[in-house]
C-alpha cells in the first residue's frame, strides 16, 4: 500500500487515540479506505496512559488490544505515525491534505529487541510518564505501543550516541539519515479525533503547581498508581515518603471563567476512581479527601459515586479550595478554604494533593482549516461544508466510553459523505 491509493473516496482520521482508532476501524470495517494519522510514534493516545478505567476498574490494555487486533487484520486501513496535518484545502468530498511525516530514524525492519536502548546512555524525560522519570533516548514508547518499533530521539541524531544505537542494531533498522517527508493526499472526508490535553495546572496560580512540592495533576497520579509508572505503582512523593493522606481538588481549571469555561465531565469520576488507588495501596490506613463544588457523576455512574461515599476512608468536603500553602517541617501542602456546609474556615494538611485538571482540546492554539467550526471552548463542532467532523474528546469533553460512541457517530457521517461523493462521480 502506498499514498497513491488515496482517492476522494478515502477517509482521513486525524489522531490515533481511542477515538481515532475507533473511527478508523468502523469506517474500514465498512469497506472504506482509511488513513489514520497519528502525531506521536505510537497509537493509543492518552487512553494507553491510564492505569484503570472507571467504572469497572479494568485496565486499558484490554480494550486497546482488541482494537489493535482489529486494526492489524484490516487491509483497508493504513496507519501513519509521527504524522501531522500541515494543511487542508478543498471542500466536502474533495479535500487535498498535506501531511508532514517526522523521521523516526528506525525502519520497519525493527524487531523491538531493545539492543539500541541498551547501547545508548543519553536519557530524555519519559513522555509516557509525563516526564516524571527518564528513559533512554532510543526507546519503545510503552508496552502497548503500536507499531512495536523503537524511536530514536532527534536530540541524539548526529551525535556519537546515535551512532552507538545504529551499531547495536542487529536488524540494521536504524537509519540516521531519515528526513522529514511531505505527503499530499486526496480524501473525501476528514475525522478530527485530535483528543485533549490536561489544562496547564501552573496557570492556576493559588494552587502552586510547580512551585509547591507534592502537588500533582490527576494524570501524574494515574502514572504513579500504575506498576509501569515512575514509582512502580507505589504512591511515593518526591521525597520518598509514602502518600497515605491524599487530597483531590475538583474543578482545577474547569468551570472557571478565568481558565476553562466548560465542565470537563470526567474529573469527578477520575477522582472517585483514584480513591480506589489509595485504598489499593494503603488499605484502611489510606485516607482520601475530595474537595468539590458538586460531584457530577453523570448517568449510571451514580452507583460508583455511592460506593465511594460508603467507603469510610473517603471524606467529601463541599468547598473549592482557595489556595495551597506549604508546611516546611512536614513537607505537606496545606489546603485553605471555607466549607460551604457550615461556612467554617479550614487549613488542612495532606501528604499529597491531586489536582483534577480539566480537559482542553489538543488543538487549542493550533491553526485549523478555515472550514472547521469550533465552540467557545475550542472543541470541534463540525465544518461549514459538512465534510469534516470532530470525534471523541476533540468534539466535547468525554470519557473513553462516550468517546467511542462519538467516534462511531463521526465515522458514520464520514461514510455518508463518501457515499454521496461516489454516487455523484458515478452519475
Amino acid at each position: 500500500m502506498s499514498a497513491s491509493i488515496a482517492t476522494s473516496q478515502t477517509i482521513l482520521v486525524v489522531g490515533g487515540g481511542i477515538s481515532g482508532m475507533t473511527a478508523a476501524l468502523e469506517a474500514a470495517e465498512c469497506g472504506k479506505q482509511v488513513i489514520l494519522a497519528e502525531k506521536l510514534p505510537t497509537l493509543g493516545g492518552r487512553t494507553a496512559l491510564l492505569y484503570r478505567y472507571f467504572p469497572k476498574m479494568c485496565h486499558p490494555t484490554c480494550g486497546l488490544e482488541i482494537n489493535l487486533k482489529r486494526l492489524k487484520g484490516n487491509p483497508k486501513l493504513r496507519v501513519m505515525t509521527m504524522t501531522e496535518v500541515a494543511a487542508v484545502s478543498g471542500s466536502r468530498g474533495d479535500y487535498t491534505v498535506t501531511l508532514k511525516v517526522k523521521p523516526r530514524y528506525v525502519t520497519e525492519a525493527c524487531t523491538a529487541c531493545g539492543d539500541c536502548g541498551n547501547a545508548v546512555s543519553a536519557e530524555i524525560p519519559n513522555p509516557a510518564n509525563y516526564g516524571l522519570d527518564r528513559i533512554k533516548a532510543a526507546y519503545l514508547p510503552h508496552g502497548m505501543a503500536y507499531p512495536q518499533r523503537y524511536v530514536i530521539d532527534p536530540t541524539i541524531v548526529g551525535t556519537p550516541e546515535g551512532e552507538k544505537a545504529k551499531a547495536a542494531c542487529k536488524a540494521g533498522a536504524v537509519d540516521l539519515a531519515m528526513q522529514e517527508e511531505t505527503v499530499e493526499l486526496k480524501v473525501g472526508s476528514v475525522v478530527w479525533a485530535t483528543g485533549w490535553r490536561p489544562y496547564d495546572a501552573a496557570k492556576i496560580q493559588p494552587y502552586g503547581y510547580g512551585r509547591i512540592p507534592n502537588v500533582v495533576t490527576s494524570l501524574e497520579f494515574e502514572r504513579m498508581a500504575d506498576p509501569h509508572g515512575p514509582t512502580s505503582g507505589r504512591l511515593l512523593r518526591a521525597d520518598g515518603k509514602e502518600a497515605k493522606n491524599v487530597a483531590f481538588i475538583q474543578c482545577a481549571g474547569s468551570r472557571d471563567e478565568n481558565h476553562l469555561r466548560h465542565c470537563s465531565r470526567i474529573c469527578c469520576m477520575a477522582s472517585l476512581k483514584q480513591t480506589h488507588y489509595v485504598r489499593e495501596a494503603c488499605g484502611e490506613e489510606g485516607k482520601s479527601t475530595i474537595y468539590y463544588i458538586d460531584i457530577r457523576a453523570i448517568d449510571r455512574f451514580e452507583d460508583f459515586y455511592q460506593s465511594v461515599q460508603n467507603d469510610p476512608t473517603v471524606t467529601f468536603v463541599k468547598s473549592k479550595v482557595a489556595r495551597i500553602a506549604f508546611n516546611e517541617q512536614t513537607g505537606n501542602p496545606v489546603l485553605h478554604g471555607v466549607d460551604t456546609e457550615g461556612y467554617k474556615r479550614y487549613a488542612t494538611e495532606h501528604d499529597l494533593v491531586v489536582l483534577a485538571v480539566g480537559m482542553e482540546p489538543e488543538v487549542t492554539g493550533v491553526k485549523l482549516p478555515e472550514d472547521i467550526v469550533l465552540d467557545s471552548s475550542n472543541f470541534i463542532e463540525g465544518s461549514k461544508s459538512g465534510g469534516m467532523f470532530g470525534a471523541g474528546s476533540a468534539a466535547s469533553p468525554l470519557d473513553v466510553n462516550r468517546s467511542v460512541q462519538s467516534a462511531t457517530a463521526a465515522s458514520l457521517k464520514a461514510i455518508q459523505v463518501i457515499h454521496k461523493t461516489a454516487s455523484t462521480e458515478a452519475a
Partner: protein
Amino acid sequence: MTTANQTAIAKYKNSFLKEVEANVEEGHWVRMCMQCGVCAGSCPLGNAWAHPPQELFMMIRAGKREEVLASDSMWMCTSCYNCIVRCPRKLPITHIMHGLANYAHRLGIAPKGQPTRETATLFWNNLIKKGRVNELTFSLALYFKDGFVQGIKNALNMQAVGLGLVKARRLNPMEILGGHGVKDQAGFKAMIEKARQIEDRKKGFAK
C-alpha cells in the same frame, strides 16, 4: 409616616433576591453564585466576617432580609479585589459588598456605630460642604466621634503626627476657619443634587 425600609418590604414582600437585583449595585449577579467558596477562602480579612460573601449570597436567595442588611460583614470589605480576580464565575463581589452596604445604609438599618459606616459618613458630609475634603476638620470629627473625652485622648495620641504634617506643610492649621473649596460653589451644589436625584431614581428611593 412610612420609612424607606417599610416601603421596600411592602414592595418586594417575600422576594429579597428581587429586591437586591433591582436596588443593589451589581445585585443582578447574586443568582450566578455557585457556592464554591473561593471568595470566602481568598479574603484576607475572612476571619473578621460573620458571614463570608458566598454565605451572604445564599442568605439573600433564602430571603434572610433582616440578617443580611443588619449584618456588618459587607462593611468589612477593604476592596482588595482578590475575590473578583478569583471568582470562577466573574461575579463583581467587591462591588456587590459595597452595594449591599450602601443599600442598608440608605434604608437606615445598617449597624449603628459600625466604624466603616461612620467614617464614610463623616468623610462624605465633610466633602460636600465645599467640594474639597478639609483634612483638619475631618480628622477632628473622626477623633471626637466617640465623645469629648475620647476625642481629647485621640488628639493627644496623634499629636506628633499632626505636628509633623504641619511642619511638612501637608496640613494647614488655618483650615479650621472653614478651609478651601471649589471655585463654583453653586455649580457644585447643583451637581451633587442632580447626582442624588439620578441615584434615588435608579435605586428606588425617588419620591
